[in-house]
């Protein structure tokens, strides 16, 4: 019998996407569809005194204009502090008015004809100002009468004891910037009401069922009136984890216009009106005994969550997990203050707090190793998380390959050519005939170094809501064709392929006999959403349960027809055979047909629901086992620093990840490499430069993503630990790829030039400034 799991199966949607045949949100066209555009605030904080829309309304081709007068009387969003159109603007991305027209250019032109009279209010652009006495309130309607949205306080052990037991203590402060998802496809939504006043929304959301609920709140209609259809998505990375004002706005536009409305962001809008990963200012202290045992970690941080609350304000939950549970630390304190400002809204983004916290935790680990004069890998292995343990935070770690990951990347580091002058790395400009290579580097100024970092990530779901569940059904038709209907969402990560592999393996059918339906809330069973690297684990378990249920039904019928007991049967390649007598066999199609064409027949319809055995964290202590499994990883970065320009080139990135079991190794490598691309950008080039609430580089030229030409060689090594709870032993891997990258690179820079970089991204200018500072002080 051919194995389907564990195979490098190409993604089911790969050829449709590669050939441009996939239908993305931007491709949706409905009869009579109109186009919406949004007018944003001119001021970061202002009262809207008057809006004159008459000239816009009179523009030929304009269908209607909307303002806050069209708002339903409901607040929405995680902090219940948001509404579609504003009468007080609290950031430059605040929606003031909207235009619906027969084409987007006319709508755009109409925006310029809207006259808004503002009364500017004092604005706040840093948490420090926001918390100062007498600071103007960004949400004066809030009971707390403070700009502090939430203050997280976590402890385990006894910090004083940890300090006393320490032979070395190190401390540092770090700053990490705003970055954004920069999805290839910008945000887009198409809204249509039918005659029953039911709304259909074509959306790039990651949370179709929660969006139903959120939209019902925002619009004041029942969730049962809302159908979400998910299109193929050109990138999500956490962007689609919340409701944003443009979604209810599109619905309000469609209702007012009486026609379907498409609202598609421009690239500029994607930067300025989309969510960002929250910047953090942090101070961290940590200690260890002279034998290399960690004693304590103490983290104090401030997060700017912007003008409205989205999931950005909850990322401290993950930062505290890294602080408390990455490595074994007996005494830990973590504090995070989440503060309202008139800046960008901050949301969920791949890693969800972990890229920030792993940067500061793993660079402080390096400082400790240095203070102890220990090898950085040996030091890490000594303190690594271990299988079958419980962390003081209450994480129950079952399978754990952290030590193996660290040792694997270290073994690969030795093959590198750190201190020898190896052949120059491939430089694309060298390929040119008849011309000298155009590298600006000059060998004497190049210093090489290597650095390590590890990561811990939830790998068995994450109970952020009361349910962490997912439903699935498996249907078998007359021809033996299998349809998996899963609640989960495909966002390019390859989940439908992995789920199809799980069902094919469980049911004993070929991959080509499976279709996956996962994009329509009217069809698919409930799921909490695609986040927290949960889909393979949670939706995989649900799909497996549904497939087992369907297989039982097939075996029940096959047993009658083959005159055998169900437990004597096995299935593969679409056939059911008696184990000890393979000649007695029939196809799954025959079994299905015999059920359909008989009196009192039945369909083959398996169902599965999986909600992992985990808990919400305690609301006061933040302790508890949030995930049914934990994934681990380690990275080794080899860098070359140009000490005259400050430019850092990553020559090699070796990644080892404990994924439990790789159901599709190719898809795992894709996740790791894609994650690394984001991690490299976070480390070296990506930053939303924000001044007075305004993004100064809202385009793909000055917001620098790593392109394919910038990518280093990536070696991705899969470590398997066979998780006891995961489907076929698998754990989640979606977010780990980019989490430790910035720390590994920072540690490599230190190895190369003896400088600890404390601010991301580590741009040439910042690195050179640090080099010059070091030269001055020496």
């Amino acid at each position, binding site marked *: 019998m051919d194995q389907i799991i564990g195979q490098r199966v190409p993604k089911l949607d790969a050829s449709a996407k590669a050939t441009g045949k996939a239908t993305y949100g931007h491709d949706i066209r409905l009869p009579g569809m109109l186009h919406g555009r949004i007018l944003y605030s001119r001021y970061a904080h202002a009262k809207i005194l008057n809006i004159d829309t008459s000239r816009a309304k009179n523009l030929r081709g304009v269908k209607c204009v909307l303002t806050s007068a069209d708002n339903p009387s409901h607040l929405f969003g995680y902090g219940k502090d948001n509404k579609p159109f504003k009468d007080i603007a609290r950031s430059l991305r605040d929606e003031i008015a909207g235009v619906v027209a027969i084409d987007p250019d006319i709508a755009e032109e109409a925006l310029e004809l809207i006259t808004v009279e503002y009364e500017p209010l004092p604005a706040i652009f840093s948490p420090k100002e926001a918390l100062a006495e007498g600071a103007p309130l960004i949400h004066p309607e809030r009971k707390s009468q403070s700009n502090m949205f939430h203050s997280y306080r976590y402890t385990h052990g006894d910090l004083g004891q940890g300090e006393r037991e320490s032979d070395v203590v190190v401390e540092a402060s770090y700053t990490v910037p705003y970055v954004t998802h920069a999805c290839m496809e910008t945000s887009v939504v198409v809204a249509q009401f039918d005659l029953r006043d039911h709304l259909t929304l074509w959306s790039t959301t990651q949370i179709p069922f929660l969006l139903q609920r959120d939209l019902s709140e925002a619009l004041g209609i029942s969730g049962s009136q809302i159908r979400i259809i998910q299109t193929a998505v050109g990138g999500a990375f956490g962007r689609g984890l919340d409701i944003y004002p443009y979604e209810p706005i599109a619905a309000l536009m469609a209702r007012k216009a009486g026609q379907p409305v498409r609202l598609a962001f421009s690239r500029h809008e994607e930067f300025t009106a989309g969510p960002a990963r929250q910047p953090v200012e942090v101070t961290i202290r940590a200690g260890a005994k002279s034998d290399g045992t960690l004693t304590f970690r103490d983290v104090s941080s401030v997060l700017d969550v912007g003008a409205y609350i989205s999931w950005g304000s909850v990322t401290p939950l993950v930062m505290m997990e890294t602080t408390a549970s990455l490595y074994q630390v007996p005494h830990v304190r973590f504090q995070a203050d989440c503060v309202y400002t008139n800046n960008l809204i901050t949301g969920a983004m791949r890693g969800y707090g972990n890229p920030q916290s792993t940067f500061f935790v793993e660079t402080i680990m390096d400082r400790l190793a240095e203070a102890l004069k220990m090898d950085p890998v040996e030091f890490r292995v000594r303190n690594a998380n271990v299988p079958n343990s419980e962390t003081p935070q209450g994480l129950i770690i079952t399978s754990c390959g952290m030590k193996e990951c660290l040792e694997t990347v270290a073994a690969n580091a030795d093959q590198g050519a750190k201190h020898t002058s190896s052949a120059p790395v491939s430089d694309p*400009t060298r390929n040119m005939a008849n011309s000298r290579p*155009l590298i600006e580097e000059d060998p004497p100024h190049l210093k090489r170094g290597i650095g390590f970092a590890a990561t811990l990530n939830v790998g068995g779901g994450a109970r952020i809501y009361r349910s962490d569940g997912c439903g699935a059904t498996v249907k078998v038709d007359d021809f033996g064709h299998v349809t998996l209907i899963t609640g989960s969402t495909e966002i390019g990560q390859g989940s439908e392929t992995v789920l199809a592999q799980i069902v094919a393996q469980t049911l004993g059918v070929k991959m080509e006999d499976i279709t996956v339906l996962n994009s329509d809330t009217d069809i698919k069973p409930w799921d909490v959403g695609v986040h927290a690297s949960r889909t393979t684990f949670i939706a995989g378990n649900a799909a497996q349960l549904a497939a087992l249920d369907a297989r039982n039904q097939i075996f029940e019928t096959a047993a009658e027809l083959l005159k055998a007991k169900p437990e004597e049967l096995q299935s593969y390649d679409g056939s059911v055979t008696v184990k000890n007598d393979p000649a007695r066999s029939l196809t799954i199609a025959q079994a299905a047909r015999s059920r359909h064409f008989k009196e009192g027949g039945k369909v083959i319809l398996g169902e599965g629901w999986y909600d992992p055995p985990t808990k919400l964290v305690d609301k006061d202590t933040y302790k508890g086992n949030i995930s049914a499994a934990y994934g681990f990883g380690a990275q080794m970065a080899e860098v070359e620093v140009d000490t005259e*320009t400050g430019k850092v080139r990553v020559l090699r990135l070796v990644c080892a990840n404990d994924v439990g079991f790789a159901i599709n190794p190719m898809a795992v490598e894709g996740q790791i490499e894609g994650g690394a691309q984001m991690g490299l950008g976070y480390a070296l080039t990506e930053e939303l430069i924000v001044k007075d609430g305004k993004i100064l580089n809202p385009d793909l030229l000055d917001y*620098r993503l790593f392109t394919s030409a910038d990518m280093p060689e990536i070696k991705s090594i899969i470590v398997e630990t066979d998780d006891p709870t995961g489907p076929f032993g698998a754990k989640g891997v979606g977010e780990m790829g980019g989490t430790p990258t910035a720390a590994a690179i920072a540690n490599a820079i230190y190895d190369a030039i003896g400088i600890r970089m404390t601010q991301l991204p580590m741009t040439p*200018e910042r690195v050179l400034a640090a080099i010059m500072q070091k030269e001055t002080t020496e």
Partner: protein
Amino acid sequence: MRPFNHFTPTTLSEALSLLAEHNGKTSVIAGGTDLLLKMKAGLRKSNVVVNIKRLPNLNCLTFNAIDGLKLGALTTLRELTRSPIIFEHYPVLAQTAHIMASEQIRSLATVGGNLCNAAPSADLAPPLIALGASVNLISSAGERRIPLENFFVGPGKSALQPGELLKEITLPPPVGKTAYLKHSPRVYMDIAIVGVAVRIQFEGDRFACREARVVLGAVAPVPLRAHQSEDVLAGQNLTEERILQAAKAAGQECSPIDDVRGAAWYRRRMVEVLLKRGIKSIQ
């Protein structure tokens, strides 16, 4: 994007009369890789767009040892990276074009467009000025030729008068060795934070400099001839000390600004580093 009138003349005289007719209100489109982005973003509003891609003889690329190179304004960046003539006589232009944008954009973007945008960071400007390029500008009133270094007036502003079209770029036969070094965070798909071109006419061996041209990009309102730096090098032995002195001079005579792409101090510093490396690379 706003609606606009689009004309596609097929003769030069037709194009020039269109430009004259819509005096000053036209945008000329060739590759469109820059213009269309600006128009879509509303940064440039044009009621009339004149497409010059069908004009004959504007994509010539010819060379002879007496007159040098004639480069039609419509020559694409990709052609610069592929032309045997360029490789043989002006390899620095191939190298420069190769690190501009991406293969797809290079297939559309033109040499004329890169210059007419008059961006202080335009990559082709420093090496072309270093090579002694001139530009031929034509209008219905006639044709004139000016040195390329006088073509740039300010950020986004060139010496082109309303109704005037950049027809071709001419270069004298190559003298000495030329290099262009660009500092940008990414290898491709990036704009120069600093660009430095240097051409040196050597005296005898490669340690003595008869004459030098140093041209700086992205550190002044226009691509800048660094005359003081040139004077430091002219007629001197290219010792380590001399090279550093020229690099310092170039760093001092430019006038960079602080912006999202880089701080002024950093840009000055990169001028020094790149000039030093540029000189060494052709020695």
